[in-house]
């Protein structure tokens, strides 16, 4: 069925596509790191007993979760240069958009993880004389993080897939590179099929890891 | 009525039932007891095909349970079962719980099913609770609804799987009373329970199981006064001396 297609277009442009993949992976890695740190802080704010913190985090999370990622990318592509008064290029504005956007999603995962630990654990920790922060740091968070590792991994896979959306600001990630080659050489079928397969292999690996971790967590 | 011959069952390589044979005649009440993990629940779940078994044969009213060609839903519709944790359908009222199988399996009309259900609820003392959902009832009440649900199918026999083990102590008797009344009416019953008072009152025989085997199958009086095996003696001494 695919025999009359020209797969050389892929091999001929492998270096170009590879550069795109490096950018995709780099953007994903930075966004994951930033999103997780942000998400952790936001989750602590969200669960804080100091109301203004909790309200701020609630509004932040629900605002970002109500709008499409593409709109957020547009927002920061427009906003960052205006705020800084000089052009910064699509990479940094996309990175900021991803970190702030993912912070909201990681926050919800981490919050659910923390709330999933039985209340008795906190009570027991406090009863032994630990402070609330110590109890969180040594008793609650370690258990919560272990339980939510599979979901965090799944979110990383989702984030990696979402990096393809930088296409809308023509940042040259893997997807955009594939599409550039596709339209330049008019090899749409070949390039998009190839892109789909590459993403599928990487994301299946990530999903399998998540499932394995899930299984291991469930066994405990 | 229920005939089990040389039934053996494995979970993987672990054998849960070893060569179990037991026979229950029409109108007989049998109590099955034994330590936890002895296979008693598994045995009665084999009797209506809820658990498959690998060897031996079970026949209910002459119909083989293990036979692939047997229409299991039809066979099960003729045997009532009551579970340890009630297993009432939480999204339905008590009345709807009782009416579901008569309507969908026996194709009775709603009016007919409801009339019968109300009669049964009255009989277990819960007519006022017909429109409540299970979560609004106490454990003892839920279990009585579950008994009514099983009776609504006009079963030829009833299986009870530890019907009082999940109940608070003060609720056990309300359930046992219903069961005693049922036994006295001549219902064929197989009851997995540790309620030895119930066994003494209505059981014709007691079957004692341990490690997947039927160790003893004796008339009730004999089982209590003169158990034939050391294991049964040990078990009795543990549960009776409180």
């Amino acid at each position, binding site marked *: 069925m695919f025999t009359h297609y020209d797969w050389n277009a892929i091999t001929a442009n492998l270096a170009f596509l590879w550069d795109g993949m490096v950018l995709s992976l780099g953007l994903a890695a930075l966004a994951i790191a930033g999103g997780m740190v942000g998400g952790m802080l936001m989750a602590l704010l969200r669960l804080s007993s100091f109301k203004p913190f909790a309200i701020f985090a609630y509004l932040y999370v629900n605002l970002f979760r109500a709008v499409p990622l593409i709109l957020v990318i*547009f927002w920061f592509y427009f906003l960052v240069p205006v705020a800084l008064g000089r052009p910064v290029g699509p990479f940094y504005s996309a990175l900021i958009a991803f970190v702030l956007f993912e912070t909201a999603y990681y926050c919800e995962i981490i919050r659910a993880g923390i709330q999933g630990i039985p209340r008795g654990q906190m009570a027991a920790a406090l009863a032994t004389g630990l402070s609330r922060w110590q109890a969180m740091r040594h008793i609650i968070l370690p258990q919560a993080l272990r339980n939510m590792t599979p979901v965090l991994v799944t979110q990383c896979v989702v984030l990696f897939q979402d990096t393809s*959306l930088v296409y809308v600001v023509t940042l040259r990630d893997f*997807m955009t590179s594939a599409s550039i080659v596709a339209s330049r050489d008019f090899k*749409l079928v070949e390039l998009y099929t190839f892109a789909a397969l590459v993403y599928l292999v990487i994301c299946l690996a990530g*999903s399998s890891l998540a499932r394995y971790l899930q299984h291991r967590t469930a066994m405990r | 009525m229920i005939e089990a011959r040389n039934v053996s069952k494995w979970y993987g390589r672990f054998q849960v039932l070893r060569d179990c044979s037991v026979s229950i005649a029409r109108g007989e009440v049998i109590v099955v007891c034994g330590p936890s993990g002895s296979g008693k629940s598994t045995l009665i779940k084999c009797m209506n095909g*809820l658990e498959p078994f690998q060897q031996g044969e079970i026949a209910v009213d002459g119909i083989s349970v293990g036979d692939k060609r047997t229409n299991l839903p039809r066979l099960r519709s003729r045997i009532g079962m009551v579970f340890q944790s009630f*297993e*009432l359908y939480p999204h339905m009222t008590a009345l709807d719980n009782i009416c579901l199988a008569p309507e969908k399996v026996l194709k009775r009309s709603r009016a007919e099913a409801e009339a019968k259900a109300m009669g049964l609820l009255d009989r277990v003392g819960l007519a006022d609770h017909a429109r409540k959902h299970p979560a609004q009832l106490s454990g003892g009440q839920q279990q009585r609804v579950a008994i009514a649900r099983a009776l609504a199918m006009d079963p030829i026999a009833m299986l009870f799987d530890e019907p009082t083990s999940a109940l608070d102590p003060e609720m056990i008797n309300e359930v046992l009373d219903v069961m005693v009344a049922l036994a006295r009416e001549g219902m064929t019953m197989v009851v997995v329970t540790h309620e030895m008072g119930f066994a003494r009152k209505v059981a014709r025989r007691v079957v004692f199981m341990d490690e997947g085997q039927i160790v003893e199958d004796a008339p009730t009086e004999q089982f209590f006064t003169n158990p034939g095996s050391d294991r049964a003696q040990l078990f009795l001494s543990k549960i009776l001396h409180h």
Partner: protein
Amino acid sequence: MSYNWNWGVLVSEPYLGWLISGTQWTLAIACLAWIMAFTLGSLIGIARTTPIGPLRWLGTAYVELFRNIPLLVQMFLWFFVFPEVLPRDWGRWVKRDLPMPEFTTAVLCLGFYTASRVAEQVRSGLNAVPKGLLAAGQAGGLTLPQIYRYILLPLGFRIIVPSLTSDFLAVFKNSSLALTIGVMELTAQSRQIENYTFQGFEAFTAATVIYCVITAIVVVIMTRVEARLRVPGLLGRQQGAL
């Protein structure tokens, strides 16, 4: 930071009309794709819980395939690749005669993709129904389809109402990807206003507010639905869908 505010741009033509039309396209895509995803996803989710091996395998393969390829890539596959790999006549029909090709493709793509998410929810909902209820249904003589119809599905779907709400909100937001194949939905319109007027702040704020308001409306409606479906005494209100 120098920026010339002009909120008036939002209520002047043609920009107001663009926002309204964009909102309509967004809602149209989201609703149609959701109907498709809900139907297809429920079937696949059910298939994944049946005891029939090949059905389960197919369901799993579907979910894994659609969840592990970025939605943008799927959009391009449906739009650019799919008509090419069809038999020649069909491909020509898709390219020439398909009504509203961008819109239709977007709906199909989002429908197929979201179905994989719905299938996962349905499966987990069905698996969350306690196994004992299944046994109770079997013991009552219900057949497997009847058990699904009266016990598993009503309970399973109740459990996943909040997750389904977030899946609907996801397809609502994901409809923005339709802009990559040229549908002028809400996000695309706000970008277009920015391009024409350089009033990005106002344009994106308008789109953001519209997304938030619609999300809020959906959440309020679904909270009502959830409360209405809630079984008395059971399954307390879970965390909000947002």
